[in-house]
């Protein structure tokens, strides 16, 4: 046996630290919490208010505009019907609002951070290891800080999803900006473009396909997180999966699982199609 007198516990000081932080930065945590909650509730309200057929119409239009393929459009249109058929429509809408909230916050944070990384090697040097850390950690780990600071419920679920899905959009924004050809940048500079103009007129527009690929991946990561996030109160389809696991109800788990996959496929196709449309023309 390991000698008992060598035992040393850090659980207590850590709990103390958390309590101290909660107390000291209460305003900050409340701010984050209420911002996320407001956005989430708003999106949830809007998405719930939309009639089911409007979703089909929206998917149809977007699919046609982005892919210009009749088969893809028809397949993407029919898929949501399957979710409705399983009786999971409402839960899917809840999941959609959680994902949308997480993705919107990720974009709002991720794109500027990516731009800063591309602009400054110093910042890139600080952020990159953080991103590596975020991506190597098992997704369950994100539940802990979220749980610590925000308890159980939808807000911590969204927060854990945000942390998990943030890296791709940052990385691909940075990458896209750095990949813009030197020839074009030099020409723009020679005509007296300031650093800001270079960013706004040349680098960001040319990086948009890459940025959108990042948004696409971020969305996929968020979807992958919904089941896990439902453990701390994310609700929606994820919770349905979780409940089926607990009850060993394979059938119900299958239905909910397939619905998550369908959401993923639709969102993936649509955002990828969107990214393609932004590519500058090539020969």
């Amino acid at each position, binding site marked *: 046996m390991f000698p008992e007198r060598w035992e040393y516990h850090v659980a207590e000081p850590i709990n103390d630290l958390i309590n101290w932080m909660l107390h000291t930065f209460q305003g900050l945590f409340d701010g984050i919490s209420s911002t996320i909650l407001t956005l989430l509730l708003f999106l949830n309200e809007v998405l719930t208010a939309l009639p089911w057929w409007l979703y089909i119409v929206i998917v149809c239009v977007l699919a046609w505009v982005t892919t210009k393929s009749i088969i893809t459009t028809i397949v993407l249109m029919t898929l949501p019907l399957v979710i409705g058929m399983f009786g999971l429509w409402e839960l899917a809408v809840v999941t959609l609002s959680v994902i949308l909230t997480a993705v919107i916050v990720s974009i709002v944070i991720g794109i500027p951070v990516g731009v800063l990384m591309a602009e400054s090697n110093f910042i890139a040097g600080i952020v990159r290891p953080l991103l590596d850390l975020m991506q190597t950690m098992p997704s369950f780990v994100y539940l802990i800080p979220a749980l610590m600071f925000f308890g159980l419920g939808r807000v911590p679920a969204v927060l854990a999803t945000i942390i998990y899905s943030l890296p791709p959009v940052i990385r691909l924004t940075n990458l896209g900006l750095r990949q813009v050809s030197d*020839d*074009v940048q*030099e*020409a*723009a*500079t*020679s*005509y*007296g*473009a*300031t650093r800001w*103009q270079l960013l706004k*007129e*040349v680098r960001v*527009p*040319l990086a948009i396909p890459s940025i959108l690929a990042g948004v696409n991946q971020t969305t996929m990561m968020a979807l992958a997180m919904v089941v896990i996030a439902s453990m701390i109160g994310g609700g929606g389809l994820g919770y349905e999966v979780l409940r089926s696991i607990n009850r060993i109800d394979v059938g119900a788990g299958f239905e909910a699982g397939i619905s998550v996959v369908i959401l993923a496929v639709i969102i993936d196709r649509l955002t990828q199609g969107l990214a393609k449309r932004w590519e*500058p*023309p*090539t*020969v």
Partner: protein
Amino acid sequence: MSKTAEPKNAIEVTNLWKVFTSDARQIDFEDKQKLQELEDSDEDTVAVRDISFSVQKEEVFVVMGLSGSGKSTLIRCLLRLAEPSSGKININGWDVCNLDAEQLTEFRRKEAAMVFQHYGLLPHRNVLDNVAFGLKLQGIEKKERYERAMHWIERVGLTGFEHYYPAHLSGGMQQRVGIARALICNPPVLLMDEPFSGLDPLIRREMQDELVEIQDRVKTTIFFVTHDLDEGMRLGNRMAVMRKGRFVQVDTPDEILADPADEYVARFVQDKRTQIEKANKKKTTTSA
């Protein structure tokens, strides 16, 4: 104020050095021995060595040299696209090496425009927006921008292609866009880095003629870089032959042809001389 009274010459360069060092250390350009070490070193590239020259207003000054002789580095130094290591550059009274960021932007917008070998057009903008790009940077409003752009598009013979994207144009047409984009800013100095090198001979010839014609009308100073002797002789009022970062001879094309300064220049012009001699012989035999 960094701009002094209007000088006689459009471009004046004195003792310009550009060294690409492996690290960002300071170099003392007065120390002759250090300089020698620098030239022998493998890590550091001396791309421009102690170059001095001046270009008069409205003159076409050609810099000719083989690949890697430092032509691009030199022309990029003039706009500080490459940061000169040492020396002085004066362009129309602007002390280029001592401008702060804001002055540099103003200088680039007002005093000079550059045409690039690889065109450097914005792939996500159509011809109209590419030509108007310089004006947009200056904050000129859309209506005027497009009017002036249309004028230049017409002058370079691209009417009807305003809404094409660069990827859908041939090399020659892309370079016409590049030239229109430069000239729309009315630059007192036009810098051209091998603008026609990527084009096939016939188109190249055509573009050279057009450049001469444009120069006759707009009367700007042109600093033209090429590795093609014929091109240099056709366009240049004066020509500098560059080798390993140095100007080995600066003279009129005729003088260079008649009296090459050294072995290197002589080899350069040899073909051209035999060509001319042959032509002359033919003329005399046919007339006899």
